[in-house]
């Protein structure tokens, strides 16, 4: 190879220009290809959002929020999603409380107590696996644990399934955020005579407040769109219910049921529900990431 590079034929002006032109052309093609790849992704996003907005907003009206899900075969435009919206909010609230409590504590343990600890390495690894584990399996697990013994789905079982999906997200972000805090903060606290736990609670947690909120928001974004864990655990409910031990309706469950039917009114509501979920998830995502970005630039 080296000999051909140095051979006189290659140093002729014509050949050099030739090769340079070829490299330039390849480079332009490469830039074009990467631009096309990006354009494809953006096109997909625009098309999905367009369908959502077009089909979701056209079916949206006030009764969506004030009336419960209709029976099949009713007139187009009748019925709403009140029971599903309330059910989703209720389960997300319960799930978030659980996920935040366990996630923040576990993340704190990993970041503050887990250094050089083999058990912590194992927990961190398993948490990462749980983070990406198929959510349908978490639904099966919650079914075996909380539905079979009580002979039927309930809002509690659904909330716990959602919490299992979300906790790894909160744990992960909590650990990352706490590790960003400088050791000088910890040392300063200890120098004042505070114990390690007090330092964590009143200095480190307070300093990482924004980050913890971000973790919570990202967890909420993940949780509110999850459908698979709710399929077997909540059993669905056509009526309004706030009873946590009884079957309950939810937006994702309603979509899964209504979308595959032939009923036009149900399909309309499935699109409306998709739009509502997408708005909730995407705004939680955007707010969370903006907060994270803001705190990094400080």
């Amino acid at each position, binding site marked *: 190879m080296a000999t051909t590079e140095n051979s006189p034929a290659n140093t002729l002006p014509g050949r050099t220009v030739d090769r340079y032109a070829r*490299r330039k052309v390849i*480079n332009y093609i490469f*830039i074009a290809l*990467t631009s096309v*790849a*990006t354009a494809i*992704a*953006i096109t*997909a*996003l625009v*098309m*999905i*959002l367009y*369908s*959502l907005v077009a*089909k979701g907003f056209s079916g949206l009206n006030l009764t969506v929020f004030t009336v419960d899900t209709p029976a099949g075969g009713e007139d187009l435009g009748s019925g709403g999603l009140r029971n599903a919206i309330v059910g989703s909010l209720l389960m997300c609230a319960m799930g978030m409380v659980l996920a935040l409590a*366990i996630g*923040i*504590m576990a993340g704190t*343990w*990993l970041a*503050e*107590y887990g250094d050089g600890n083999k058990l912590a390495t*194992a*927990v961190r*690894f*398993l948490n*990462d*696996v749980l983070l*990406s*584990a*198929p*959510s*349908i*399996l*978490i639904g*099966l*697990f919650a079914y*075996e644990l909380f539905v079979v013994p009580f002979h039927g789905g309930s809002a509690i079982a659904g909330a716990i399934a959602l919490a*299992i999906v979300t*906790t790894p997200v909160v*744990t992960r972000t909590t650990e990352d955020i706490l590790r960003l805090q400088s050791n000088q903060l910890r040392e300063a606290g200890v120098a004042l005579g*505070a*114990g390690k*736990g*007090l330092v964590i609670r009143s200095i480190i947690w307070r300093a990482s407040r924004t980050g913890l909120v971000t973790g919570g928001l990202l967890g909420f974004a993940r949780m509110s*769109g999850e*459908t*698979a864990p709710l*399929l077997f655990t909540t059993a669905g409910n056509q009526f309004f219910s706030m009873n946590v031990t009884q079957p309950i309706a939810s937006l*994702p469950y309603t*979509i*899964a049921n209504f*979308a595959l039917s032939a009923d036009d009114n149900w*399909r309309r509501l*499935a699109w409306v529900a*998709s739009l509502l*979920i997408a708005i909730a*998830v995407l705004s939680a*995502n955007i707010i969370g990431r903006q907060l994270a970005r803001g705190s990094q630039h400080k």
Partner: protein
Amino acid sequence: MADAALTQASEGPQRIDDSPGASATGVKDAIFHGLCFTAAMVLMATLLGLLISLAVGGWPAFSHFGLQFFTSSEWNPSGTEDHPEFYGAAGPIVGTLITALVAMVIALPLAIGIAVFLVEFCPKSIERWVAIAVELLAGIPSIVYGMWGLFVLAPWFEEHVMTPLRLIAADHPGSFADHLMTGASSGSNIFTASIILAIMVLPFIATVFRELLLSVPSHVREASYGMGCTPFEVVSSIMLPYIRKSAVGAAMLGLGRALGETMAVTFIIGNSHAFPKGVFDSGSTIASTIANEFAEATGDLHTSALIALGLVLFVITFVVLAAARLLLGQEKH
């Protein structure tokens, strides 16, 4: 003198103030440490419990059908006297692997393209918007992708891709189009499910790739530019080889997601348990089978077979995800 001081200290309380002081703080801290530790253990117990419950629930099906559970593609929940119920999961298992692999074949080049575009070529003014778009794509919930796939992508694919292909195949028997259309059903098929999966995993892989490309030390990049390399040469012969190992990890992370994705695939794959005959045939994945049948499972054996499928999925994704984490190292997401 020193001895006297020590004995004095150990004999009685010599504290000057009456605040709860160190010992009370110590107890609180110990409780706090205990709570944190318990939370971490709850997390670990959840994953172990998941594994155990799947193994226990699936055991009847494994022991009843043995190896046939993996090799047979006969899935017959409605048993009769002379034709007892039978569960062979070859169809869903193969469906899971095929959809995930096709999705990766589509998503990987696009993800590399997006990451390289963002790091090397993107004008500063639009970089932020592209990054936000990719984040939004990652944020859209699975079931919304399912709605879009079912009502927009599948009908479009049926009308604009499969119908022309069908005409060509009818005119030229034995041609490539004819082979492609073997066993073709409707627009809801394995291939469209793979397209949806590809769009879903794309932003995750692209984001990790971008972080990896940014982690290449700038002196390495600048040195190769200084040698007179074109941007293409810098990317293809310096930067991509530099991040090779982690990039494989990122791809496997995407693969793990594609394998377990449920709702979008359930909406669009067509849900047939037979062994898929072609890439345009309707099929099923493990996750879609569980999602479709579990709530209406008739007998104990049916339930057990579905949980056994869940265990198979868990083992496959666990291996893939564990490999991904090891390749990526602990720091990366």
